[in-house]
């Protein structure tokens, strides 16, 4: 092992700078590629490394060329690093922290010697899309080739045991979101807040100020003033190190907040009444031979390094400048003690032909052919307008050849733009534009806000805002800028994807000649910077290759998110509601195995489902059936409703009686089933399946509200209001007798399929149903939920000598299968009609109307679909797994097993299943293909019920 060495000096660190963001009183160290490096608080990872003289931070994706810093901003394509277990950290943005462990990502075996860099000599054989043209034959070798390709996948590492971390989200309802905290964003926010709007001001970097931060004394003064204004204007919430990540329909604005004290990342979802887009401009790289060498940097990068981080970007520089920012960079470099060996002024025909060097620039070939030795090449060749938020709002940016950049075209009512994206001009002109934009945004936002409030019915206190005339926003001048995209040589266009200008031309010549096809074929703009640095150059090069103008060529569509966002922040707390029955504490104490049933957590079993089932047949068992859907129905028209919903007849149900019902959808497919009891003259209680509870309720409301609004019925879900306990088994009456207060439980007074209201274990207002899913004598007791646990415990206590035991879902499934009761959704599927589910006995086609009637009446005339039947394997020890197929002849599917189990009661396997109509005759032998490939035979039974088909036990 190599021992860690400590760098103590920071040779490239300059003396104090007026606008620096580092805190020289807080030095510390961190680790880069296994070695310790010094840093100051406020440094980014890359600024700290640059201060120590490091220049290579990654290897490029395809050719594994050394890469250094280019933009010194979030976008910096060569500065993506691994921090601890976090991949793809933007090293030029992320602040370094004491003890941070940082490593380079795309290098093997090491950053200094990268074995894959041989690819750079193979470049000519690896044109864009080369993989489409090779590895075709022999086909069997493709998987091996694929493995090799995968090894080139760029990016950091993930770990299967990384902790999830804490992320959350919040909603916001500002009047205005301002995207961008540069001078224009700040001025717009202040103006809007002064006009009475609530504003969220979002800045991607750690402080407000934008380009003023690395500017002149005057600019720093203006910055201080603007920051003061923001601070003292009420109604502005400032979010730094945050980014407006997307604008969606309804001006739903996603804001990502990073590195909060208690949350790693937070997503803010803002319903902005107006979005003001003020992101400034992104400096565009220049395309020429060697433009990706470490030491080739943008003018803004040089100025950021010097002014914000007090880092000297090099010793001897050549500068290519086409604008005032380039000129300012020259001044900054000189002030920082960098020898400026040559200034190539593109406005006067200056140019760069190429840069040379191995792990960094050593020499630059200038426009006139002369060669200058240097270790730094700074370019200032123009700007890209980050129009993506406008684009997401439907705007199509338009290219302006005068300014050599794209501009927003069609402003919408709820999105405005200001700052550099809208035009050029002096700081004063920009600020005036921004202020007017802020005022206009406020005017519109207040109007929208009041309309939203007025949209809430029965609100009395909405004040109409005075109708103000629109604020006139002055036009910003457009300053002429040379169109500089590619010089006389080929170079890298997409630094993340390692795509050169040659690649784009080659793609165009092959027919991939529209922007989208070129993008997809070469993958240019598809990498981590998502086109923010490279799109305009790519479009310009494509335009030239196809003989079109940039306007004709157009640009790609920008898609959200604006900046990459963690899955953690997008997920937030990951709300997944869960439901528990009142008896859950008891289940947990008694070893219930939890089963997820939709939102409910239910006891699957308590250790031994078969003995639980046997105990029901022999003694008495309790099952918690609280999740069963329950709907309270009241009103004189309930019978009409029931007749509509169910396929069977409901006119004649007497008070105290219960009936089983089946619901179908309009296409005749079985939707749900359950029992409904009549509790009083105009009062019914309907039960549904657990999974169908919500659907059925919404379904009923739909019929009532839209088809029969004149019916006098109230439907109220009461699933949770009652704890439901099914007491099942031959001794259930005896057990219930011990706790029931005022209800006559004798078979004569309280027969099968009846319901009574009374007191159980001292709890009033309980419903007792004599029904049975298990086929045993059983009572389903609905207890006011808060007393559920109390009553359950009482029953367990009082029934101890009767052998009472709990049983779970699994035992219940065994019992119901023995009894041949179907489960909708298991023994039926999305296309099972009521006839094929063996429910013909229930369907009353003579009723005037019910849901699904037409389809069912046609089905009754001709139904050749599979039929649900009881099945018993001839070999009773074989349990065909559910979904085993029933086959005929040459593997023709003739049915399937829908339910199966080993019956503890019968001591043999039993099934329900679908069979083709010609196999449905009782006594038919069918062939069942088991999942293990073996075959077995089974007999079609007379009844669905395998046990007590006449139902004597439950009626007892």
């Amino acid at each position, binding site marked *: 092992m190599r021992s860690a060495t400590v760098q103590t000096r920071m040779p490239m660190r300059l003396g104090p700078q007026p606008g620096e963001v580092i805190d020289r009183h807080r030095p510390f160290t961190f680790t880069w590629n296994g070695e310790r490096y010094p840093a100051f608080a406020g440094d980014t990872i890359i600024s700290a490394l640059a201060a120590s003289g490091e220049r290579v931070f990654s290897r490029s994706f395809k050719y594994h060329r050394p890469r250094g810093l280019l933009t010194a901003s979030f976008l910096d394509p060569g500065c993506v690093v691994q921090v601890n277990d976090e991949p793809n950290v933007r090293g030029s943005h992320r602040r370094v922290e004491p003890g941070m462990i940082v490593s380079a990502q795309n290098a093997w075996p090491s950053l200094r010697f990268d074995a894959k860099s041989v690819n750079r000599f193979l470049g000519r054989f690896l044109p864009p899309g080369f993989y489409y043209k090779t590895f075709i034959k022999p086909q069997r070798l493709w998987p091996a080739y694929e493995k090799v390709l995968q090894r080139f996948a760029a990016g950091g590492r993930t770990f299967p045991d990384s902790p999830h971390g804490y992320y*959350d*989200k*919040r*909603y*916001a*309802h500002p009047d205005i979101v301002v995207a961008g905290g540069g001078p224009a964003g700040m001025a717009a926010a202040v103006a809007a807040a002064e006009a009475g709007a609530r504003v969220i001001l979002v800045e991607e970097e750690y402080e407000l100020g934008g380009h003023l931060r690395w500017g002149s004394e005057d600019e720093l003064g203006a910055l201080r003033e603007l920051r003061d204004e923001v601070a003292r204007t009420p109604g502005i919430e400032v979010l730094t190190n945050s980014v407006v990540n997307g604008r969606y329909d309804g001006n739903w604005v996603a804001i990502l907040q990073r590195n909060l004290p*208690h*949350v790693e990342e937070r997503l803010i*979802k803002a*319903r902005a009444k107006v979005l003001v887009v003020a992101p400034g401009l992104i400096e565009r790289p220049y395309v020429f031979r060697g433009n990706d060498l470490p030491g080739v940097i943008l003018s803004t990068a040089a100025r950021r390094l010097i002014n914000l981080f007090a880092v000297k970007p090099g010793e001897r520089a050549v500068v290519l400048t086409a604008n005032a920012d380039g000129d300012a960079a020259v001044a900054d470099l000189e002030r920082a003690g960098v020898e400026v060996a040559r200034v190539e002024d593109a406005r006067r025909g200056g140019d760069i032909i190429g840069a040379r060097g191995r792990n960094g620039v050593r020499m630059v070939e200038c426009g006139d052919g002369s060669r200058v030795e240097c270790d730094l090449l700074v370019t200032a060749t123009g700007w890209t307008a980050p129009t993506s938020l406008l684009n997401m709002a439907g705007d199509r940016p338009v290219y302006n050849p005068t300014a050599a950049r794209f501009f927003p075209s069609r402003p919408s009512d709820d999105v405005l733009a200001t700052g550099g994206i809208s035009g050029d001009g002096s700081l004063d002109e920009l600020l005036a534009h921004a202020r007017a934009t802020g005022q206009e945004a406020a005017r519109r936002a207040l109007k929208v*806000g009041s309309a*939203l*409030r007025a949209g*809430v*019915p*029965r*609100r009395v*206190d909405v004040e109409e805002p005075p109708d103000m005339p629109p604020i006139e926003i002055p036009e910003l001048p457009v300053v002429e800028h040379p169109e500089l995209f590619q010089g006389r040589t080929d170079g890298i266009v997409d630094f993340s994807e390692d795509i050169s200008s040659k690649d784009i031309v080659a793609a165009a010549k092959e027919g991939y000649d529209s922007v989208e096809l070129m993008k997809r074929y070469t993958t240019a703009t598809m990498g981590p910077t998502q086109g923010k640095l490279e799109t305009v150059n790519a479009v310009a090069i494509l335009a030239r290759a196809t003989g079109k103008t940039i306007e004709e060529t157009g640009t790609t569509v920008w898609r959200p998110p604006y900046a990459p966002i963690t899955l953690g922040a997008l997920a937030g*707390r990951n*709300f*997944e*509601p*869960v*439901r*528990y*029955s*009142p008896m859950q*504490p008891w289940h947990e104490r008694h070893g219930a195995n939890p089963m997820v049933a939709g*939102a*409910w957590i239910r006891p699957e079993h308590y250790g031994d489902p078969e003995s639980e089932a046997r105990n029901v047949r022999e003694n008495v068992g309790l099952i918690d059936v*609280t*999740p069963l859907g329950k709907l*309270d129905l*009241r*009103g*004189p028209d309930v019978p009409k409703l029931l007749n509509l919903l169910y396929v069977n007849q409901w006119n004649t149900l007497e008070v105290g009686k219960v009936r089983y019902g089946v619901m179908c959808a309009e296409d005749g497919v079985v939707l749900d089933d359950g029992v409904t009891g009549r509790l009083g003259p105009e009062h019914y209680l309907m039960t549904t399946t657990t999974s169908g509870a919500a659907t059925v309720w919404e379904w009923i409301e739909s019929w009532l509200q839209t088809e029969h609004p004149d019916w*006098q*019925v*109230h439907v*109220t*879900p*009461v*699933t*949770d*209001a*009652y704890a439901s306990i099914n007491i099942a088994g031959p001794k259930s009456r005896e057990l219930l007798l011990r706790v029931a207060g005022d209800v006559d439980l004798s078979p004569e007074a309280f027969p099968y399929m009846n319901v009574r209201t009374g007191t159980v*274990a*001292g*709890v009033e207002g309980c419903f007792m149903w004599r029904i049975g899913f298990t086929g045993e004598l059983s009572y389903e007791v609905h207890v*006011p*939920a*808060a*007393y*559920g*646990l*109390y*009553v359950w415990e009482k029953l367990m206590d009082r029934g101890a000598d009767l052998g009472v035991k709990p049983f779970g879902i699994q035992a219940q499934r065994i019992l119901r299968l023995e009894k041949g009761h179907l489960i909708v959704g298991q023994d039926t599927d999305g296309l099972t009609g009521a006839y094929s589910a063996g429910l013909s006995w229930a369907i009353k086609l003579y009723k005037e109307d019910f849901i699904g009637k037409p389809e069912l009446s046609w089905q009754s005339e001709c139904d050749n679909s599979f039929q649900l039947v009881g099945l018993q394997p001839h070999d009773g020890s074989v349990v065909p797994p559910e979904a085993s197929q029933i086959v005929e002849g040459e593997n023709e599917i003739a049915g399937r097993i829908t339910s199966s189990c080993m019956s503890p009661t019968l001591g043999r396997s039993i099934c329900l299943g679908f069979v083709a109509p010609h196999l449905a005759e009782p006594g038919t032998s069918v062939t069942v293909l088991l999942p293990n490939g073996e075959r077995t035979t089974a007999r079609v039974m007379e009844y669905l019920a395998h046990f007590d088909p006449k139902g004597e036990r439950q009626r007892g």
Partner: protein
Amino acid sequence: MAERAPIARSPISPAPPVTVEYGWEISARRTSADLRIMDCTPLVKILVRASIDGGVARALEVPFGRAACDERGVLVVGSGPGEWLLLAPPGAGTETVRRVEEVRDREIVSILDVTHGRALVRISGEEAVDLLAKVCGIDFSDEVTPDGTAFRSSVAKLTTDVVRDDQDGVRSYLLHCERSFGQYLFDSLHDAGDEFGIEIEGFAGSKALSQPG
């Protein structure tokens, strides 16, 4: 052995110390934190369904979207179109039902005691706004949802009724949902309030509902 009276339990497990009062097992915890969460499930909850403009609606006086305390200390919530939720101190159920029965005219009226069907939580403190902004998409500012506002929306992805019911000039919200989700709702709110120093306060009838006056 004499039968003890049945014990009612909230779906939200009570924070220790635990005691039994009003026939309910409740937490006896007290706190002086600025932001507090209280399980108010023991309150009586009566759901009334009637026509929007019938006798019951006139007698209850509160339209959908608003909530107000009547002279007997019952909080009447206009919880839906033609739907009201009446919140009353424990034990006041029968009386509350009787009073609605009295005012019904010939229309169809459903009166359901959903005391057992709902979980009810109160959050009090000025930072309740910030807490709720983490779990609910509704604008909780005074202009949009002033004191006495009632609405149903999604809270932590759960359909929840929210009532702004300030107490002594301090911001306070009642939230109720289907009972089985109670623990989930409580935990979600508690988690969201963690960064603001939320603390649990045990149920006290006097604090659960504002006093008439």
